[in-house]
C-alpha cells in the first residue's frame, strides 16, 4: 500500500544532521500507519518535547528510535549509524519507558547493576550506586522492586536507563507516578544530561513540564508530526490551547 510522505510543518534542523535524525520515518501495523512520514533532528544538548493525544504514534516512534521496532518506511539515525543498528548504537541510547523494565524479585541495586553490566559499564556496582543516589533511592537500594511504590519503581527505572550515561535518552512519559521530589530529581537529571551534550526526546502529556525542559517542541497526531517549533518561538501561555485546537481541527 502506498503511503503519503508527510513532512512536519517545521523542521528543527535538516534531518540529515543531529544526534538523532529521522527522514520520512514510518511504521505500519497491518494496513494502518502508526507513524507516517516523520522527519526530525535533535542536536546534541537538545531536548525535543513531544506531545500528542493517546494513539498518536509517539511510543511507536520512540520504540523505532530505540531499535525495538523496525521502520516500515524511511530512515532513522543515531549519530552516524542507521537504525536498527548493532550493539554500538544501542550502547548510546537510554530508554525510560512507561513500563519500568525492572525485575520484581531483584532489588533496586541488582536491577540497575544488571543493566550496567549489560552495557559494559566499568565498575557496575559503583555506577549503579551513583545512578540510584541521583534519583534519591540510595536508602532503598537493597529493597526488592516488588516492595517499592509505583513512583519509587519509576525512579529505579530512570536510574536503570541512565546508568551507562547515554548520549541519547528516549523518555516515554517518565514523570508518570513520580512525586514532587521525584519529578524534581528527574528534571535535574534531564537537564544534567543535556548539559553533557546528550540529545533527549521526551514524550509527555504535561505541557508545562515538557516546555520547561525543552529546546524544541513537537505535536504528533494520527502518526504524523503536525507541528514542530523551537521552544523560543513558542508562547507557553497559549501553547496548551493551540495544542488542543490543533488536535481537534485535525481529528
Amino acid at each position, binding site marked *: 500500500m502506498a503511503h503519503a510522505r508527510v513532512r512536519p510543518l517545521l523542521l528543527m534542523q535538516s534531518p540529515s544532521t543531529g544526534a538523532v535524525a529521522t527522514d520520512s520515518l514510518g511504521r505500519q501495523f497491518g494496513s494502518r500507519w502508526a507513524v507516517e512520514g516523520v522527519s526530525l533532528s535533535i542536536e546534541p544538548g537538545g531536548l525535543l518535547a513531544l506531545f500528542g493525544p493517546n494513539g498518536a504514534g509517539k511510543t511507536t516512534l520512540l520504540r523505532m528510535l*530505540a*531499535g*525495538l*521496532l*523496525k521502520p516500515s518506511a524511511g530512515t532513522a539515525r543515531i549519530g552516524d549509524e542507521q537504525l536498527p543498528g*548493532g*550493539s*554500538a548504537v*544501542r*550502547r548510546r*541510547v537510554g*530508554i525510560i*519507558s512507561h*513500563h*519500568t*523494565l*525492572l*525485575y*520484581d*524479585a*531483584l532489588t533496586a541495586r*541488582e536491577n540497575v547493576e*544488571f*543493566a550496567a*553490566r*549489560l*552495557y*559494559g559499564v566499568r565498575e557496575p556496582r559503583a555506577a549503579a550506586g551513583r545512578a540510584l543516589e541521583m534519583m534519591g533511592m540510595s536508602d532503598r537500594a537493597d529493597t*526488592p522492586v516488588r516492595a517499592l511504590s509505583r513512583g519509587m*519503581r519509576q525512579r529505579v527505572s530512570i536510574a*536503570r536507563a541512565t546508568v551507562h550515561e547515554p548520549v541519547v535518552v528516549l523518555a516515554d512519559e517518565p514523570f508518570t507516578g513520580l512525586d514532587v521530589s521525584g519529578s524534581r530529581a528527574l528534571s535535574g537529571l534531564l537537564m544534567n544530561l543535556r548539559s553533557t551534550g546528550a540529545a533527549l526526546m521526551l514524550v509527555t502529556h504535561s505541557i508545562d513540564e515538557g516546555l520547561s525542559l525543552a529546546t524544541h517542541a513537537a505535536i504528533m497526531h494520527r502518526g504524523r508530526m503536525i507541528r514542530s517549533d523551537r521552544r523560543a518561538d513558542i508562547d507557553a501561555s497559549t501553547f496548551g490551547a493551540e495544542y488542543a485546537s490543533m488536535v481537534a481541527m485535525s481529528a
Partner: protein
Amino acid sequence: MRDLLRDSWLIARKDLAIEFRTRSAFLSAIVFALLGIVIFYFAWDPTAVTTVDLAPGVLWVVFTFSGLLGLHRSFGVEQPDRAIDGLLAAPIARESIYLGKALANLIFVIGVQAVAIPAVALFYNLPVGPVLLPLSAIALLAAIGLVSVGTLFSAMAVNTRLAELLLPMLSLPFFVPIVIPAAQATAKLMSGRPAGDALPWLKLLLAFDIVFAVACMLAYPFTIEE
C-alpha cells in the same frame, strides 16, 4: 564470542537469582516430578512389567513434563514490566539472550534431575550406583536437547494468550527425537548391559543436541521481531 558468552552468563545468572529468590518454578517442578514418580509407582503392576522396562520411561516422562514448568517461566519473568525490552535494547547479541535463557533452563532441569533420579532409584529399587556416570551423561545430553528446543518455543509462546497450552503443544513433538534415544540408552544401562551398548543412542542424542542447539539459536532472533 567472548562477549556472547559473558552476556549469556549475565542473563543466566540473573534468571537463576530470580528463581532462587522466588523458588516458584523449581519447587513446582520438584513436587510435580515426585508426584509423577509416586503415581507411576502405585499404578505399576510388577508381575506384568519389570522395573527395568518401566523405570526409564517414568524417568523421561517426569523430566519432560517437569522441565516444561521451568521453560514456561523462562521468558515469563520478562513479561510483567516488559523487562524483555530492556534486554532487546541493550548492546548485546540477540543470541546471548537465547543462550543465557537456555543455560539457566539447563541448570534448572539438571536440578530437577538431581532429585528425580535418586527418587526413581529409590522407588523402583534400581542399582544406579554402578551406572551413575553414563546415566549422568545421558541426562545431561538429553537436558541440552530439551532446553534448546524448549527455550525457543518459550520465547515464541510467551506473547500469546494460550502460552501455557502452546508451549507443550509446540515443544513435545520436537522432544520426541531427544526422549527416545535418552530412554533407550537409560534402559540399556539399567538392564545391566555394558555402557558401550548405549553408545549408539548417545551418539544420536549428541547429533540431535547439536542440530537443535544451533538451529534454535539461529532462529531465536526471528521470534522477537515485531
